[in-house]
């Protein structure tokens, strides 16, 4: 199966936030939203910004970011998308101790909520600060959550041949979806067009970052201007964890089990001897 990707075009995005709403609606992520029966369970108040809710959360998988930028008297209002980037070199997949987070057949990062042990290692491992953990105070059980690229079990749009919900709803056509290679071509064409029209800083973000993101960005300025990491890297600790400590751990653990097995065999042999 060919890799899929979303292409987000900041030069077309009007930040209507239809994507935020459809994401919650499609995925049933409405628990944190107040309703007349539930009461005001979350402080939903205006904080003097168009951005709300304040941050990504277990029930908020996508959030638009608004940045005001003014230079030499010219105002700009930059919009960008905060959500899982579905990296090829995904820190979360590296950090996950039991394979709960994994790359699916489309190259995007899925997770199995049933096996998630709520360790939270994926959170510091993400260069984009995306996964969020929700714990139950009584049972102590915690689960990580993030954008599933619309592959949520039972709500899977991708295997049904549909585009992700955010792409489907985007009114100004700022989101496109398709095979990753095609999205890269489309993104490059768009960047070339913007450059030809005087947007010198236009660039395609995500083509090579972390060996290729599955959410690509057409930007009109440097990623930093939008609040995106300029050169995202999986944290050293995660690499150490996955590539050094974890293999060592597995090795040590394996040796331990082997040792215990030997011990048992020896003990069993001894016991049999005694029986005789």
């Amino acid at each position, binding site marked *: 199966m060919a890799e899929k990707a979303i292409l987000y075009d900041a030069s077309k995005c009007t930040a209507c936030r239809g994507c935020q709403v459809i994401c919650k609606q499609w995925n049933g992520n409405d628990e944190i939203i107040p309703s007349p029966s539930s009461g005001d369970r979350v402080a939903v108040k205006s904080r003097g910004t168009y951005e709300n809710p304040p941050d990504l959360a277990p029930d908020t998988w996508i959030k638009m970011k608004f940045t005001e930028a*003014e230079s030499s008297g010219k105002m700009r209002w930059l919009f960008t998308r905060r959500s899982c980037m579905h990296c090829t070199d995904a820190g979360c997949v590296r950090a996950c101790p039991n394979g709960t987070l994994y790359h699916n057949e489309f190259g995007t990062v899925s997770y199995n909520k049933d096996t998630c042990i709520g360790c939270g290692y994926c959170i510091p491992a993400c260069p984009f600060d995306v996964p969020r953990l929700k714990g139950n105070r009584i049972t102590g059980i915690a689960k990580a959550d993030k954008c599933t690229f619309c592959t949520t079990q039972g709500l899977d749009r991708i295997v049904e041949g549909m585009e992700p919900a955010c792409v489907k709803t985007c009114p100004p056509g700022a989101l496109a979806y398709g095979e990753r290679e095609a999205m890269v071509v489309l993104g490059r064409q768009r960047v070339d067009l913007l450059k030809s029209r005087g947007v010198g800083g236009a660039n395609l973000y995500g083509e090579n970052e972390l060996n290729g993101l599955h959410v690509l960005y057409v930007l009109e300025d440097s990623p930093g201007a939008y609040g995106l990491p300029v050169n995202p890297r999986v944290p050293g600790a995660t690499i150490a964890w996955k590539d050094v400590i974890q293999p060592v751990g597995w090795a040590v653990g394996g040796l331990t089990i082997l040792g215990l097995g030997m011990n048992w065999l020896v003990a069993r042999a001894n016991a049999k001897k005694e029986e005789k």
Partner: protein
Amino acid sequence: MTNHWGDIANSDVVMALGGNPAENHPAAFGHITIAKERGAKLISVDPRFTRTSSKADVYAPIRSGTDVAFVGGMIKYVLDDIEANPSNYNMVYITEYTNASYLVNTGFKGPAELEGLFSGYAGGLNETDGTKRKYDKATWAYQVDDKSIPKKDKTLQDANCVFQILKRQYARYTVDKVNAICGTPRDAFLEVCKTFAASGKTGKAGVILYAMGTTQHTNGAENIRAYSILQLLLANMGVAGGGIDAMRGESNVQGSTDFGLLFDSIPGYLGMFTDADTSRQKYLDRVTPKNNDPTSANWLQNYPKYITSLLKAWYGDAATKDNDFGFHYLPKIETGKNYSWISLFEAMAAGKIKGMMAWGQNPAVGGPSSNTERQALANLDWLVASDLWMTETMEFWKRPGVNPADIKTEVFVLPARASFEKEGSVTNSSRWMQWRYKAAEGPGEAEDDLWMINKIMLRLRELYAKDGGPNAEAITKTNWNYGDPPDVHKVAKEINGYDTTTGKQIDGFANLKDDGTTACGEWVYCGSYVEPDKEPNAPVPGNRASRRDLAPDAFNTGLYPKWAWSWPVNRRIIYNRASVDLNGEPWDKEHPVIKWNPTKGETGGWDGDVVDGNYPPIAVDPVKSRYPFIMTSEGVARLFAQGMADGPMPEFYEPWECPVSNQMSSQTSNPVAKVWRPDEQGKPDKYPIVATTYRVCEHWQAGQMTRNMPWLVELMPEPFVEMSNELAAEKGIANGDKVTIESTRGKVTMVAMVTGRFKPFQMNGRRVHEVGLLWHWGYSGLSTGDSANILTPHIGDANTMIPEYKAFLVDVKKA
């Protein structure tokens, strides 16, 4: 819209002025995106830097309420440029298709000569006597020859010709004046002028997109007139990618306007009946436009056919030639009396109105000066309100600060169905009548509007028949037979019209008659629902609104003539006869709308869109040809319009509440606008800050449909007031602080959004602050908050009475 949504993609330059499409028309913004991809420039003119501005190539700030000064300045720029570079403009269009060459009465004097007034004003400068705040328009008339045909000077040199009058009036609208009045930086203003004026070149097109930011002013109608003048000078009317496009704020507001929503019109924009119209003929004498120019089609001379057919639709067999087609049944308004929103609520406040039906409306949030209107509701004996949710209007009697025991009004709530829970047509901004089907049943006892009005009407008819009453025949004689429950197709078929003898559907309004043999509920919609064999392939055969065929038009200009049905007669671009030269050749070869085809039929014919006036081009057949603007009596478009209450050409006046004196003349505010409450006029000494109101993408209108929607409440949980960093610093306000905003009408508390996107206006060195408030909120529903309209004044436009929501004075303090 003169054009349609998809046609924006054909534009070379799109100017959003008095509207914020990215915010309030988010889906439609996709068409602008396509235009931009094709290389169009987007201009955004707005008091603050908006979501639309963020996508614009050119942004210019403008102080709220100064649109005529801004566009007047653009008109001057174009007039000067026409003189300097005539080859960049379409002079044939200006001379032949507008009234630029028409001579005006020698007694006419304009604001340049009369300190901001026009000749014929009954009062003096800044007149306070309401009876003298009006014009005698005798001097605004054209000069006519001995056959009563308007005189012209095609050289445009005569001092009394419209073109010269235009030049004299707008010579005063210099870049410096624009800066001093609007606070727009000179370079930004000139960039707007240069960018938009480029659309004046033959073959180029520019469109103006506007919404309530243009209309909700005491000068609202003149703002639109200013756009019309600019677009005519740039030859942008009637062409693909041109026009003046009113972006409608509700899915079917175009439809409701078409069907006589306003007090002064009945379905099809025909004039309302007054008590002076003692017979059908007297009515027709008053309203039917006359013109003696044989080359003018003066299409509305067909008035008798439309009104007679309407009477036949309403009164059926009870309307006969012998009883003047039932004209005497009709209820009539008092001559000269105004029944618009503000007037109705003033009458309610005075105890003159005893009952009200608020249908899908929420006046307690949406009306101006909310405290005034909420108090007025208490004077009603009864109130019927229909909506999807409980609204502030339904719950006005238990709003914060009032004792329900003190209010005697009996309130009836009719739960309504949403658009997906009923079948019928919706007419969008593009004038497309689109048929929709019921997708789900409504909840509980909710019923659709047609069901409700049908029940009410049937019961009323029964009661009037039994008990009688004033003017009972207006009700008892009605031809009301849609069934029970009603069949919406029967209504749609009656709207289209039928032959009263054969019962067959009529194909188009050219077939309507004034002898009682045709009935038609809305002549503009005639042709929408024809006999099944005339439109056999429509999903509902005969119902053209149900068509969903994406076949392109003859010139592939994006008209999609088989998608739904566009009024009138499926014409996609109104005034399209102006899109061609005198030989019928399109000005714009890349985006033709129509084209004369000499080989068509026996004597030639038009290809492309449904032509606006099926006559040959002027140069092909000067005798049979007619001027291209068939809906004006003179046949050409009006740079100078006698019909306006406050002047034949837009003159700049400050809003009713203004922070500075008028820099253009000694007449401060609109000399004709009716002042209802002079004591409530805020003055800059106490209220020095300009305020305006607007909406956000996340909420809709008075909020019932979105403030009860948890996902949307989360996105935009409270009302906010946007202000500049400079004002916030002066007032010691930090972003996110609660602030109070006060006008003479009341006080509200909102969250401060302090932003670099709002800047103080530097008007010739003088600094004026402006703030913007969201108006969606009220005291009912899931998300509640103060209503911005508590602050807005109870005054309206001089022509239309639309309230001045968009410019008033306040003070702001940290709460």
